[in-house]
């Protein structure tokens, strides 16, 4: 075992540097400039994670005629009455302040109308055009400005540091710190902290096709589960209908082709060139994400596929020049990969995009364990069964900021550093050391089997039989991962070791998703059970809570507290524009 562990101490330790992590750093410093803040991140600061990848934009009820109530109703109805209402409400209220903060205090410049006011575009499932954006690369603008501010602060930056274990206090009084691997040297590092923020961005990268950035592998969720926290809504994995398909050997496969392509009138064609979406829904390609994803998946199951096993998106009938002008980013991206989006056909597949589920925490982002806070995609409950496009980055920036303030307040009340439970540190290291000393074997093959199982059996269409067989397949695969060895030589920047660690987290959370999917016997939002195709009674809506150890997961149906609005009611009087009860 690696004897030398480097130990440091800080006031606030933030894991992750997406919208949640960086906003937390900013707000913690603003609340108390004397705090010593450390940001530890698996990639480069501000350059990893998905906040940067946001294309569509940021939902905020800021325009005349729109209201927080309306944004809230859209969120609740879109989330199929499953969202935690107090959290959804806070999201809608605070996003107004946050977008102004982004514009005024951080220096973002979002697209304008001709009169100079913010331009807000339509996004599926919303009763008002409220998505603020910067072209179709909104995330770059947001995260660049955020990292600029954070870089200018006095904070400790631990880049390419991977958190592997949350370490509790010896006396059980809360969190004491986090065990990390310094990826650049391959050594272990323990950071003691008074408060810790988990903002590692979840990320459903256990599916054959997925959109998130490569550094996201559900590490935070897996650590939280081991630490004893409960997760909710984990069956809710959002699929984006049009991921680029370039074959299994290219990392560009699975990356998102913008929703606007379908909105603008793009066709989806199956292997025979038939426009199949008309067979599934009156709105054809313009139906919502979940419906189109299911349509495509159905064609794939029937074998009506392209050479690489997907379907085509075709834009040429809109005029190649026109397409190039309207979607320059997408056309260029496809061209860089060798595809002609403007004039030809590009192969696409649905692709796992976002996890609505996550760790249960309070509206102040505090988890059940004192000193440990959760924000961003790691946290569960805000979106319920479906996330509206544009509510994701809102969630991470709103709650990231709140977390910063909450942590500063927590430290003011709890200024002491806690003694760590050495035993858990040792366990964490033992877990990471497991593959060394065993015979090296083929990791990619095992990853492929996990991908395939999740895709086929815990994916877009689910049923009890498949889910049950997925449980045993995943368990067996996980066992093989434990038996796989790694060549032990160069530990510095050893990506294969980190692949192995990624897969550990992915296996853990795949089990959770599968268990939660088995526990939900109805279909709503992102979760579709072929054996229970209908949405149950809304008034008795429950969410699924998962806890326990990965080998002995406990699921529990917990009634949703309709603290603000009940099914059938609306906060909006004006009937004509009430969001549809079922979207």
């Amino acid at each position, binding site marked *: 075992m690696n004897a030398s562990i480097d130990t440091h101490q800080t006031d606030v330790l933030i894991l992750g540097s997406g919208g949640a992590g960086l906003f937390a750093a900013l707000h913690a410093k603003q609340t108390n400039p004397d705090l010593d803040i450390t940001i530890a991140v698996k*990639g*480069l600061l501000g*350059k*990893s*994670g*998905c906040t*940067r*990848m946001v294309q569509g934009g940021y939902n905020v009820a800021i325009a005349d005629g729109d209201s927080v109530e309306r944004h809230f109703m859209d969120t609740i109805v879109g989330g199929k009455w499953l969202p935690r209402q107090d959290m959804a409400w806070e999201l809608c209220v605070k996003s107004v*302040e946050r*977008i*102004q*903060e982004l*514009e*005024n*205090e951080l*220096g973002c*410049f979002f*697209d*304008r109308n*001709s*009169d*100079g*006011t*913010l331009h807000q575009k339509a996004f599926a499932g919303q009763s008002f055009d409220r998505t603020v954006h910067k*072209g179709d*690369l909104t*995330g*770059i603008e947001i995260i*660049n*400005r955020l990292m*600029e*501010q954070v*870089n*200018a602060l006095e904070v400790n930056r631990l*880049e390419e540091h991977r958190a592997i274990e949350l370490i509790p206090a010896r006396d059980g009084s809360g969190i004491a710190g986090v065990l990390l691997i310094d990826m*650049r040297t391959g050594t272990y590092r323990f950071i003691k902290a008074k408060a810790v923020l988990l903002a590692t961005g979840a990320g459903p990268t256990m599916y054959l096709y997925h959109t998130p*950035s*490569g*550094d996201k592998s559900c590490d935070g969720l897996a650590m939280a589960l081991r630490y004893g926290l409960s997760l909710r809504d984990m069956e809710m994995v959002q699929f984006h209908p049009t991921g680029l398909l*370039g*074959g299994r*050997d*290219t*990392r*560009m496969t699975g990356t998102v082709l913008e929703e606007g392509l379908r909105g603008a009138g793009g066709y989806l064609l199956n292997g025979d060139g038939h426009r199949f979406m008309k067979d599934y829904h009156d709105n054809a390609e313009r139906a919502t994400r979940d419906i189109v994803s299911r349509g495509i998946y159905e064609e794939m199951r029937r074998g009506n596929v392209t050479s690489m096993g997907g379907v085509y998106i075709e834009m040429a009938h809109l005029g190649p020049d026109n397409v190039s002008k309207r979607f320059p980013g997408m056309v260029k991206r496809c061209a*860089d*990969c*060798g595809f002609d989006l403007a004039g030809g056909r590009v192969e696409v597949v649905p692709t796992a995009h976002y996890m609505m589920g996550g760790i249960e925490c309070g509206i102040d982002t505090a988890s059940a364990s004192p000193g440990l806070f959760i924000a961003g995609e790691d946290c569960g409950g805000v979106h319920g069964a479906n996330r509206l496009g544009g509510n994701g980055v809102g969630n991470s920036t709103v709650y990231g900021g709140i977390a910063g303030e909450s942590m500063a307040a927590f430290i003011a009340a709890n200024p002491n550093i806690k003694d760590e439970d050495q035993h858990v540190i040792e366990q964490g290291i033992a877990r990471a050391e497991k593959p060394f000393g065993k015979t*090296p074997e083929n*990791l*990619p093959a095992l990853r492929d089997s996990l991908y395939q199982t999740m895709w086929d059996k815990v994916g877009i269409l689910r049923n009890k039989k498949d889910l049950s067989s997925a449980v045993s397949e995943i368990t067996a695969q996980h066992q093989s991962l434990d038996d796989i060895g*790694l*060549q032990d*030589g*160069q530990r*510095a*920047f*050893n*990506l*294969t070791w980190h692949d192995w660690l990624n897969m550990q987290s992915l296996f853990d959370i795949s089990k959770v998703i599968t268990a939660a999917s088995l526990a939900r016997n109805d279909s709503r939002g992102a979760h579709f059970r072929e054996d229970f195709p209908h949405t149950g009674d809304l008034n008795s809506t429950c969410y699924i809570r998962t806890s326990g150890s990965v080998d002995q997961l406990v699921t529990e149906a917990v009634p949703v507290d309709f603290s603000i609005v009940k099914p059938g009611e609306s906060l909006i009087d004006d009937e004509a524009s009430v969001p549809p009860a079922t979207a």
Partner: protein
Amino acid sequence: MLKVSIWRGVDEGEFIDYEVPMRANQTVLDIVTEVQRNQEPDLAYRFACRVGVCGSCAMTVNGRPRWTCRSHVNDVIDGDRLVLEPLRSHPRIRDLVVDLAPFFETWKGSGAVFKPSATRDDKPVKITADDPARKNADAGIECINCAVCYSACDVVSWDKNYLGPAALNRAWTLVNDAKHGERKETLNKALGDGGCGSCHSMGNCTRNCPVGLSPSAGIAGLKKFALRGLPKVEKP
């Protein structure tokens, strides 16, 4: 088969040759991934988004700095050869990975940090997108901080004081930003030590910027302000 020579080591090291199957859809990032997954488990390289927005994956490909996740092999290959090295002008970490921290330090040096002139309680100011200063800023704003331009610029490699194209490009966008509270200070820093006076308009930054920005034009704009003074930017 494709012949790939990859730099292994830190400052001391050597090129090692690998053979990788040729495929129809293959980026340079896919090539290094293939090598790492199937031939050389401890090959070090960096990527994150894989779609050209995070700027983590840049390296030197056949002599030129590039983002690799969006560089199709067919577009960059020389015969059947690919030579991959870390980005130049950065401290090396291992194999194809460099330390970008000094690169980000240059941001501060060039005064490229937004200072607010309003608060979160104020409505966003009304500035139209066709405001001339705003247009200047917009033209330079979508930088992914990939450090390709920095690595491409010879002056950066010659003069360790030079802040380089990316940081100066950001300073240029700020000087044109009516919302920025310290336009003058930013201009002063950008014209100071290691600032835009060191740029000799070589243009390698612009020619290599993967997202099509033109730091050359931005730096020339800063020089114009140096000579003519900072123009007023209307703030309604």
